[in-house]
């Protein structure tokens, strides 16, 4: 079974981003970039499926600028066999990415596509579901456990208030939640090996996809700042403040 894993290059999760003073966006020049954490979990899950001999080949895909190659190399160092970069300098929104991925799926014919549940930059949480819709495949979002046997995938999902298990007919789409697994650290030998793995490059034009953005960002602003708080000396002072100043208890 072939598994496709889309990965996104995002601002590292430890970086606190700053809004540009002209409110045109956030400043990501000279900021550390990494693979989206949920996508790392997706690559790890695919790799584990391969180690269990459920998956035979793992193809990593990324859409975006040339530097996304680094993200794909990381995916290959974790365990992906080869990569595809859909290269463009244009802004890509989830619907466009879903369309690009559909074109790749049509070519590659995987049985399973594992995506992260959301990217930590746009926080959209859309691409996996959109891809499922475009392909007319079943979806299991926010997965915390995935089991594949024969032509079905049984997936436990994190829902509000607990867990839910669904069974999907393959081919299918799964999006990862945090609890699915703990991604492995990439080792130096694997980074060296990943450099030799194949990485093909294509473009939205070659895939015949119109990737124009649908949403126009008018401005990006700082969230309203909270007014500075006070430190209290002891519990009695805290209770007094909550009762008499904030009036919340």
């Amino acid at each position: 079974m072939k598994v496709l894993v889309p990965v996104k290059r995002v601002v590292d999760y430890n970086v606190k981003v700053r809004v540009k003073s002209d409110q045109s966006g956030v400043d990501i020049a000279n900021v550390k970039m990494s693979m989206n954490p949920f996508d790392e979990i997706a690559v790890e899950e695919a790799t584990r499926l391969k180690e269990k001999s459920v998956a035979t080949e793992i193809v990593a895909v990324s859409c975006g600028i040339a530097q996304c190659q680094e993200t794909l190399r990381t995916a290959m160092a974790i365990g992906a066999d080869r990569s595809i970069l859909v290269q463009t300098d244009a802004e890509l929104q989830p619907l466009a990415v879903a369309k690009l991925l559909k074109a790749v799926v049509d070519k590659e014919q995987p049985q399973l596509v594992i995506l992260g549940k959301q990217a930590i930059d746009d926080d959209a949480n859309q691409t996996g579901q959109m891809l499922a819709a475009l392909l007319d495949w079943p979806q299991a979002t926010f997965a915390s456990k995935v089991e594949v046997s024969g032509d079905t995938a049984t997936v436990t999902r994190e829902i509000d208030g607990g867990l839910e298990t669904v069974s999907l007919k393959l081919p299918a789409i799964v999006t990862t939640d945090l609890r699915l697994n703990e991604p492995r650290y990439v080792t130096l030998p694997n980074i060296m090996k990943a450099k030799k793995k194949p990485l093909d490059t294509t473009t939205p034009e070659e895939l015949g996809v119109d990737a124009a953005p649908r949403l126009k960002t008018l401005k990006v602003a700082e969230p309203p700042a909270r007014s500075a708080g006070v430190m209290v000396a002891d519990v009695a002072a805290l209770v007094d403040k909550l009762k008499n100043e904030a009036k919340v208890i």
Partner: protein
Amino acid sequence: MSILVIAEHDKAQLRGATLNAVAAAQKIGGDVHVLVMGQGVQAVADQAAKLAGVGKVLLADGPALAESLAENVAAQVLAVAQGYGHIVFAATAEGKNVAPRVAAKLDVAQISDIVAVESPDTFQRPIYAGNAIATVQSADAVKVITVRTTAFDPVAAEGGQASVEAVDAVADSGLSSFVGREVAKSDRPELAGAAVVVSGGRGMGSADNFKLLEPLADKLGAALGASRAAVDAGYAPNDWQVGQTGKIVAPQLYIAVGISGAIQHLAGMKDSKVIVAINKDAEAPIFSVADYGLVGDLFQVVPELTKSL
């Protein structure tokens, strides 16, 4: 243009999130209709009809909709979507699961997790874990939206008198099937809607120590929450997690105990009205958002606080 709000329920009761979604729909402006889907859910439709400001309730009742499978639910929404300018979901696990599927089928962008409506085509939404607020404009014919529930005050549950109209329920897609559900039982208020939340972090040290928070939560009638670190360490169940990747809360009072205040946690609670932080590290980032900070050992402070309430 009319607005279609997708209702959420637990088969017997309308969920609170629907009331917030209706409130957001009213801000967009237009006739607000509510779609209730499920099996044997007439009672839920009747509740939806009483919501203030709802013009009509559509009820799709059929076996394919019994367990809210994304494939069937999305198909049902599409079956009635004709003629609506906006389709509004609450940004809950259920809404997030289905809304993008509907948007892609309509070939429109989805606007996730809106926190404000500027005009019928312009909305504000947080990005980068709430560290920036983007104002976005949609040129699509239909706007598919998910609503951050904590950003909109719920509409009144009583006072409306909409008609309930039955619509044909879709057939099962055959693509997926429901296996089971484990819902954590709790007598406490629901985390996302609680007026007071008491949250513990890695500083709690163990699952047993987490019990220390229970008497405090009981006294305050609070829901219990946790940081990702506490959940990952197994101190608290997954669905207690507050943060970018867990639940977004905005209670009147949020008490963070033994939580350092990582970006991902702040994204889930920094819109709370009053934030109290109890931490032994005076340098912890949580103190930068706290209205009241107390530097001290939580194992002494929490019991003392409980006693003094």
